[in-house]
C-alpha cells in the first residue's frame, strides 16, 4: 500500500514538474514574451542607432503614448471582441462619424464638453448594440456585419458634412490643449534649458481603461465567460453560460470603448473628415494580434494589446525616422508585421492541434 502511494506521489510530482516546465511556453505567455521583448529590443536599438533623431529623449517615450491613446482604447475593445471569437472592423468608420458629428454639434449647436462626450458614447454604443444584435441573436457573420457598419459610418459622415471640419469652440480647444507636466522627467534642449515632459490627459484615460479591462477580463464573471465562449461556444453553453448574451455584451463593450476611443481621437486631432481614421480598425486588429490575442478566440491579454500598440507605434516611428522619403513604407511595414504575427499564430495553433 505504502509503496503504491509513494509511486502515485512521485508521479504527481513528476507531472507537476512537467507542467511547471511547460508553462512559460503556453500560447499567451509565449506571444506576450515575443511582443514585449520585440518592443524593448526595437526601442533600445533605435535609441542606440537613431539617438540623434530624438529617440534618446524622454519626451519620445511619452509621445508614443500621446499619439496612440485613442488606439489603445479602441484596441482594447477589439481584443475583447476577438477573445469572444468575433471581430469588429467598423471602429474606424464609427470613429470618423464620432469626430465629425461631435465637431458639427460643438460648432453649430453649442454643445459643451459633457454633451459631446455623451454624444460620442451614444454613437459608439449604438454601433455596438446594433452589430451585437445582428451577430449574436441573428447569428450573422461578424465580418460582413461590421464591414457594413464601417461603410455605414463613413457614409453617414458624408451625409452630415462632406468637407473637412475643425473644432472652433474655444472652451473645448482649451481643454484639449491642456497637458500634464511630469515632474523630474524631461530633456535638455539645445540652449541648455530643461524642458519638462508633457503628457496628454487622454493617456491617463487610456491607461485607466487598460487596467479596468484587465480586471474585467481576469476577475469578473462576464470577463471569464468571454474567454469561455471564445474558446468553445458549445462547451460554454453546456456550462450554463448565455452564449448569445455574452457575444452581445462583447460587441456592446467594444462599441462603448470605440466611443471613448473616438472621443479621445477627436480630443487629440480636433478635426474630422470622411477619410479620417482610415485603417484604424486595421491598426487595432494588428495591435491585438501582435499582443497575443488569437483570431480563433479564447486567448488574449489586455496588457499584450497595450504592448502591441506600442510596438507597432515604435516600428512606424523608426520606419519614418530612417528617412525614406517614399510614403508607402509605413503601410507596407505594418502589413508585413501583421502577416508575420498572423502566420506565427497559425503555426502555434496547428502545433497545439497536433499535440492533442
Amino acid at each position, binding site marked *: 500500500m505504502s509503496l503504491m502511494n509513494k509511486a502515485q506521489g512521485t508521479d504527481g510530482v513528476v507531472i507537476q514538474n512537467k507542467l511547471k516546465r511547460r508553462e512559460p511556453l503556453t500560447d499567451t505567455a509565449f506571444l506576450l514574451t515575443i511582443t514585449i521583448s520585440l518592443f524593448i529590443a526595437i526601442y533600445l536599438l533605435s535609441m542606440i542607432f537613431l539617438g540623434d533623431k530624438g529617440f534618446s529623449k524622454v519626451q519620445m517615450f511619452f509621445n508614443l503614448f500621446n499619439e496612440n491613446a485613442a488606439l489603445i482604447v479602441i484596441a482594447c475593445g477589439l481584443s475583447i471582441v476577438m477573445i469572444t471569437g468575433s471581430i469588429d472592423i467598423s471602429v474606424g468608420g464609427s470613429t470618423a462619424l464620432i469626430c465629425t458629428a461631435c465637431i458639427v454639434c460643438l460648432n453649430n449647436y453649442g454643445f459643451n464638453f459633457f454633451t459631446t462626450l455623451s454624444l460620442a458614447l451614444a454613437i459608439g454604443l449604438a454601433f455596438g448594440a446594433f452589430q451585437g444584435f445582428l451577430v449574436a441573436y441573428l*447569428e450573422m457573420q461578424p465580418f460582413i*456585419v461590421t464591414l457594413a457598419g464601417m461603410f455605414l459610418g463613413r457614409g453617414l459622415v458624408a451625409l452630415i458634412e462632406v468637407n473637412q471640419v475643425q473644432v472652433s469652440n474655444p472652451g473645448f480647444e482649451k481643454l484639449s490643449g491642456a497637458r500634464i507636466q511630469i515632474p523630474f522627467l524631461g530633456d535638455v534642449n539645445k540652449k541648455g534649458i530643461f524642458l519638462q515632459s508633457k503628457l496628454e490627459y487622454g493617456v491617463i484615460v487610456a491607461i485607466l481603461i487598460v487596467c479596468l479591462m484587465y480586471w474585467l477580463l481576469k476577475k469578473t464573471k462576464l470577463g471569464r465567460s468571454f474567454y469561455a465562449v471564445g474558446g468553445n461556444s458549445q462547451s460554454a453553453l453546456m456550462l450554463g453560460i448565455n452564449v448569445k448574451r455574452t457575444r452581445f455584451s462583447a460587441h456592446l463593450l467594444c462599441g462603448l470603448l470605440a466611443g471613448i476611443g473616438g472621443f479621445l481621437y477627436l480630443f487629440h486631432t480636433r478635426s474630422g473628415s470622411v477619410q479620417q481614421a482610415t485603417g484604424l480598425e486595421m491598426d487595432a486588429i*494588428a495591435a491585438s494580434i501582435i499582443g497575443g490575442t488569437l483570431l480563433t478566440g479564447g486567448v488574449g491579454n489586455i496588457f499584450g494589446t497595450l504592448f502591441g500598440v506600442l510596438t507597432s507605434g515604435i516600428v512606424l516611428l523608426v520606419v519614418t525616422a530612417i528617412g525614406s522619403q517614399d*510614403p508607402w513604407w509605413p503601410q507596407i511595414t505594418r*502589413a508585413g508585421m501583421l502577416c508575420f504575427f498572423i502566420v506565427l499564430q497559425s503555426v502555434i495553433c*496547428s502545433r497545439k492541434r497536433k499535440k492533442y
Partner: protein
Amino acid sequence: MSRNSNKLDIDRSASVLNALIRHKLFIPITFLTCLLLINVFIKPSFLIISMGKDSTGNPVLIGNLINILNNATELVILAIGMTLVTSSSRGQDISVSATVAIVGGVIMRVLCGSETQPSVLHAPVILALLLGCLAGMACGVFNGILVSKFNIQPMVATLILFTAGRSIGSMAMGGLKPKAVASFGYYGNFIPGFPIPTPILITIAVVAVTILVLKKTNLGLYTRAVGINDKSSSLNGLNPAMIKLLTFVILGLCVGIAGFVQSSRVQTVNPYTIVPGIEMDVILAVALGGNSLGGGKFNMAGSIIGAYTIQTLTSMLTTLNVNTNAVPVFKAVIIIVLVAIQTPTVKSFFNNKVKFSKLTAGDGKERG
C-alpha cells in the same frame, strides 16, 4: 364542381408562385426589375438607347443602359472570381480593391516606364495585360496560401493585402502618376469606328469563358464539394487546399482583367483612390445573387445579375444627386437586410409563418 376546379386553379397558381419565389434567381431578378422600374419612373427616357458621336466624331452608342452595362464591367468580372472564392473557402476576399491598385500600378509601370507623360507606349499592351494578370495572380497565390495552408480565415488573411495593396501599387509606379497615350484608352472606352464600348465586349468574353469552364470542367463541382465539406471532399480524393488556392488564383486573374479595364478608362491610375470600396460592392453582388456567404453551393448567373443590379443602384443614386461618399450607406443597409434574410433565425421565423398558412390550406383540402 366549379368550386373544386376553382380551388385547383388556386392551388396550381399558388404552387407556381411558390416555385417562382423559391427559384434561385428570384431575388436578384426581382430586385433588378424593381430598380429599373424606379429608374424609368424617375426619368422616363431611361431605357432609350441612341446613336451619338463622341468628341472625335466617331459613332458611339449613348444611353443609360449602355452606361450601366459599361460601368458594371469590373464588378461583373470580380463577382465571378469572388463567387468561386466564397463557395470554396467560406469567406470573402476583401483585398480586391487594393489588388486592383497593384495591378493598375504594374500596368502603368510597364506602359510608361519612369516617364510621367510618355509620347509612345513603352511596351505592347498585351504584355502589360499579361504582367498585370500575373501580378493579380501572385496576390491570389499569397492570399490562397495563407487561407489554404495556414488555415487562416479568408477575411483576416486578405486583411494583410487590404492594408498594404494601395501602397504597393504606389510603389510599383515609383510614386509617379503617369498618363499613358490615348491609344491605351481603347480598351476602357471605344475602339474608333466601333459603336459598342469595349468593356462590354470584354465582359461578354469573360462571361463566355466562365460558362465554358464551368460546363466543360469539374471546377464548379469541386469548388462546391470543398465548400460544403472539405473533410469529406478530401476523403473523396480531392485536395481541398489545392482547390481553395486555385479559386484564389482565378480571382487574382479576374482582378488582373478588371484592373486592366479600369486603368485603361482614364489611362492613368491613382492607387490610393482607384475603385474605392469595390470589395463591398462585389460581396454585395454575390450575396444579392442568392449565394450563401457561408460557402457551399453557388450560382454564377445570380452573381452576374447581382453585379448589374448594384451598378444600376449606384447610377440611380448618382442621378438622385447623392454624394459619392454617402452611397455606401444605402449599400450597407441593403447588405445587412440581405444577409439577415439568409440567417437561420429569420428563415425559421418566416418558415413558421408559411407553415401556418399551409396547414390551414391543407385543412380545407381534406374537408373538400
